[in-house]
């Protein structure tokens, strides 16, 4: 089965969202963090004089790659192999995890240091490693906080965004055995540095995801802010990378576009502090052995859908999460998947299969803020509607279907519409309080629980107009 992180056990979005809405601290943390990133992004996007042209370039390159994915992947394999890398292909999450476990085992190792990667969360690699007696050590500061706190990521770029400094201090105190740890940023980063340095210097197997795979040279590109990633990419003897097949781009020169789009969109920086690029292995410099696992896990199925294949253009910048008014209320956990926010709402149901995810495509007011900020112009609202359509075609809840059929009948002619308006005016009588309806039963209760609803006035516009035409209205 294709799985996306912890989605299998998650409740539907509305239920999980209500739980998140009750968590005041969580909402405060999420709001603060997303606003800081949004503000930074807005500044560095505004100073770029060709931002819209850059977005269009990004979209075109990605769309072109998706149309010719087979040949670009084969070119990447050939060039990576020529540079001394080993290329593996994995059809699904279990397949990818098995390949990675086997490589580590073949070296007789029992630990691995990891660069931040969403894809390994998608395949639940850490659980697979632990099951095989291999200890994964997250080295990205946020991922370390998640791992030590037995938590799950709530944001694609800033996975521990839902935690504030006091909570992080508490996790470090307990899990690093530092009862006297201070609460200043310097105290926390020093503790993390000491904890991680020991692992960087000792563990001989490194693991990473990939931001871009370059077909032309067989190179892999990883961008990050901390430098911990570069430690994992350069210090170990063996390096393993896991990447979705959609990560490939044609040539090195295409990075010119993406290395502007990604950092500005993701963290509001002009450039990432660390941009690491390598092809295969180089004797006497860096890892002696390099493996890359190319993961499908449902991606070819997404590719087969002409409307929603745009989803695969995503470069995981998470600008859509920070811009989304729904995400800002709930945080990422409500989405029940490591891919949260608007992109998660379209990616998760497609990767995971619609039967588990009939609520996520509806987890949006279709406000369009996500589309507006997307650096590769994925029309997320349109794909949400497309997925909703698939849900309806597969069988929506009976009450909803009847309501929609009823509305369709009412809109089928002015005579039916007048009849429906009349019935509505009659049925609302018991619930009327002045010109408002305060408490309605059934489907409408969800509205009136928290909001008043205007009552239908005695005369509709069309009846007023008809009376006016007859000369009888004001």
């Amino acid at each position, binding site marked *: 089965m294709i799985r996306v992180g912890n989605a299998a056990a998650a409740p539907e*979005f*509305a239920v999980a*969202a*209500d739980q998140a*809405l009750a968590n005041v601290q969580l909402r405060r943390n999420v709001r603060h963090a997303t606003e800081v990133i949004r503000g930074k992004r807005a500044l560095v996007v505004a100073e770029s004089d060709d931002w819209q042209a850059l977005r269009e370039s990004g979209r075109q390159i990605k769309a072109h790659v998706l149309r010719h994915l087979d040949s670009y992947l084969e070119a990447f394999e050939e060039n990576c192999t020529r540079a001394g890398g080993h290329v593996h292909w994995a059809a699904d999450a279990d397949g990818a995890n098995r390949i990675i476990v086997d490589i580590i085992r073949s070296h007789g190792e029992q630990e691995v240091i990891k660069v931040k990667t969403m894809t390994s969360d998608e395949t639940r690699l850490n659980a697979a490693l632990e099951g095989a007696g291999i200890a994964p050590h997250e080295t990205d500061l946020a991922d370390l906080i998640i791992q030590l706190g037995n938590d799950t990521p709530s944001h694609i770029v800033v996975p521990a965004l839902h935690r504030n400094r006091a909570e992080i201090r508490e996790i470090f105190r307990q899990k690093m055995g530092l009862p006297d740890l201070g609460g200043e940023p310097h105290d926390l980063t020093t503790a993390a540095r000491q904890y991680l340095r020991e692992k960087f210097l000792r563990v001989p197997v490194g693991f990473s995801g990939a931001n871009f795979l370059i077909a032309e040279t067989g190179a892999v590109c990883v961008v990050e802010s901390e430098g911990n990633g570069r430690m994992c990419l350069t210090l170990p003897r063996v390096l393993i990378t896991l990447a979705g097949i959609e990560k490939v781009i044609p040539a090195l020169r295409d990075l010119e576009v993406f290395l502007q789009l990604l950092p500005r969109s993701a963290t509001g920086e002009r450039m990432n502090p660390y941009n690491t690029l390598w092809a295969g292995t180089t004797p006497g410099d860096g890892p002696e052995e390099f493996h890359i696992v190319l993961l499908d896990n449902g991606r070819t199925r997404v590719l087969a859908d002409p409307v929603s294949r745009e989803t695969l253009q995503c470069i995981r910048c998470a600008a859509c999460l920070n811009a989304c*008014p*729904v995400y800002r*209320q*709930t945080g990422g956990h409500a989405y029940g998947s490591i891919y949260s926010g608007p992109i998660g709402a379209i990616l998760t149901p497609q990767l995971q299969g619609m039967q588990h995810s009939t609520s996520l*495509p*509806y*987890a*949006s*007011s*279709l*406000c*369009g*803020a996500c*589309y507006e900020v997307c650096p590769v112009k994925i029309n997320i609202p*349109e794909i949400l*509607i497309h*997925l*909703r*359509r*698939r*849900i*309806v*075609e597969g069988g929506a809840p009976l009450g*909803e279907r009847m309501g*929609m*059929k009823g*509305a*369709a009948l*009412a*809109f*089928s*002619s*002015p005579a039916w*519409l007048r009849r429906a*308006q009349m019935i*509505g005016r009659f049925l609302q009588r018991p619930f009327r309080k002045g010109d*408002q309806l305060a408490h309605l039963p059934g*489907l*409408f209760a*969800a*509205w009136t*629980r*928290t*909001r*008043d*609803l*205007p009552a*239908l*006035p005695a005369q*509709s*516009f*069309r009846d*007023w*107009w*008809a009376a006016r035409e007859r000369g009888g209205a004001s």
Partner: protein
Amino acid sequence: MLISLFITCYNDALFPSTGKAVVAVLERLGHTVEFRDAQTCCGQMHYNTGYAREALPLMRRMVDVYRGAGPICAPSASCVAMMRDHYPKMAAETGDQRLEAEVADLLGRVFEFSELLVDRLGVTDVGAAFPHTVTLHTSCHSLRSLHIGDQPERLLAAVQGLQLVTLPRRDECCGFGGTFSVKNAGVSTAMAADKVACVLGTGAEVCTAGDNSCLMQIGGALRRGNAAVRCLHLAEILASTAPGELPP
């Protein structure tokens, strides 16, 4: 000029005063308004909820109803956005090239209310008087689908006695989102609460917008919180000529 009014289904049933206000403003400007009774709904609710099959006959109805009409005015950015964003695709899906051409022809004639006034008719001063403090909610569809700029502000700025106060975080969704407001009522309400806090923060007496759907959400939350702020469609402010009391 003869202008055809597309009232939209929810304005017809729930907010007839908005339709009357549109008629009043256009007639005051010397135009003639027609209302074609065969109109019902643009299909937005069905389409956005995933019921494309039910939305298609409603699009066909729009094409039929407004065949031969001149400029069409809709006092709802979201209904106009429905048409502009989705009708061409819906028509293309049918494979009926005549329908595609007719849809393109229809779309060339449809205007959101403030677009019609400022862009098509070239008017900003409609001769209104409204001596109140007003804040403007820019709906998501007007902002991000129709890319309406400062047309509503220019119209409001010309209203005698009106004091316009900027709404903080004005580009954020009010949380209505059609069926989203009931399917995800908890999140929708939380979004409305944020919007209401911004509206109350302005100290304005009236919150206006080009979309009664947003105003129904914002107004519903305001009323539940017993706030005195009134929600009024832009057309109703522009229709007002009598200084003094707020319209009922």
